[in-house]
């Protein structure tokens, strides 16, 4: 009898925990990768002329003594951009996006900041120069005083 009761208790508790976990998955990433069955959408993303390209941004960071790593193109391209890469700078999650016009840039930047704000990172920043935006979110307090983020922005705006 006692054993049965405890088994029942365990099942109930597990159910409640699962239910709770499910309830709090409220924010879906804006750029969910296309599933295997998804139809082939747009052509592969291309860089935008007339604005700093992602590789130039990463180069500027290296020159500034930072260590960008793991940058890869995002597809489909999120945040209304024409081209985006995601990676890390000194272990801080970073996105670089290129836009075709100011309107798309403004919307994309605002949407990204709004999403990150809801997700609850310690620090988040989005900054643009011409039609290229960099966005950095420090989720794990790698940069409590913002020194790295400031350095990354400073290098970027010198491009």
């Amino acid at each position, binding site marked *: 009898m006692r054993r049965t009761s405890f088994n029942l*208790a365990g099942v109930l508790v597990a159910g*409640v925990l699962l239910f709770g976990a499910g309830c709090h998955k409220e924010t879906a990433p804006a750029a969910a990768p296309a599933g295997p069955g998804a139809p082939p959408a747009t052509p592969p993303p291309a860089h935008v002329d007339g604005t700093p390209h992602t590789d130039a941004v990463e180069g500027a960071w290296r020159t500034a003594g930072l260590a960008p790593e793991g940058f890869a193109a995002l597809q489909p391209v999120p945040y209304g951009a024409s081209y985006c890469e995601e990676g890390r700078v000194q272990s801080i999650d970073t996105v670089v996006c290129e836009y075709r016009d100011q309107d798309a840039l403004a919307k994309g930047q605002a949407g990204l900041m709004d999403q990150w*704000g809801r997700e*609850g*990172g*310690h620090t988040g920043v989005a900054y643009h120069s011409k039609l290229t935006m960099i966005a950095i979110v420090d989720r794990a307090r790698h940069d*409590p005083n913002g020194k790295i983020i400031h350095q990354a922005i400073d290098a970027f705006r010198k491009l």
Partner: protein
Amino acid sequence: MRRTFVFVGFLVACSVGLAGTASVAHAEAVQYMSRHPIPKRVGHGFCEIDVPHFHDYPPSDPRLYRQVNGQNYFVGDPTPFGYDGPRYSFYGPHPIADPNVQLGGTSYCYLEGPHSHWYAPPPQAHFEMKGGAYWYTGAYEPSFYADQPRFVVVNDVYAPMVYERPVIDVAFAPPAFHAEFLVGGGPGWRYAPGWRENPGWRGPGPGPGWRGPGPGPGWRGPERREMVMRERHEEFRHEEHREWEHGHDHGWHGGPPGHEPGGPHGGWRGGPPGHEPGGPHGGWHPGPGPAAHAGPPGGGWHGGGGGPHPGGGGHGNQFHR
């Protein structure tokens, strides 16, 4: 069996509670417009990000911020909060002239006396650089006076702080400097009875370093006094030196030069104001009396200071953009 259900209920309640805790752990994003101090409960020091950004914590002290479109802009002197970038010295209240932010109209810094900011005013702004500091020489808009009661409390934050304030000799004040001294503003920010709004006077005067005796009988809370330096500048300097000559060897008694005993503020019987350790860095510049550590009057501390400070590198343009 009944005990089992009680146990299950307890566990369910705990689980729900934990889930709730997890959801509130995602603190609301708080927007900041530029650099700002980091609250002690979060860490320490100064956030160096000089573009709009968010954190998961609110400002440490709302008196140090101005809210513009939901964004918090730090309006204080960053020096005591661990800021180690370039600094520029200012004297007295002035329009906020940070070229990197848009505050949606003229907003004012209400800091009294000598203080620093991370920005230098743009050339078109009405500031004059004299004696290593920026002096505001333009007119104050009505909003300056209207907002004063709300924002003058920023001085209360700095009043008890001990840190290296810029040393500014008011003798360098440009003729067009038209200071607005904001008297009062809350506990901890008090002028000495008998203090005169006098640019040449380096006794108990305005400034965050001043912690003199409390207000006298005539105290009516915050009030604004106006001082036009152009007319009385030299006269006050003479008074100051005369008083030093007479008062030096006899200790510090009575008010500052020209003080009318029994005046509206009551009698001054106190010693010199609480002098900040580390020399004459504060708004109160040591004058006469044995407690003054600055040496003979007028010596050793004239000029100097001003911005950008050597400690901060002094290369604002390189630092900013």
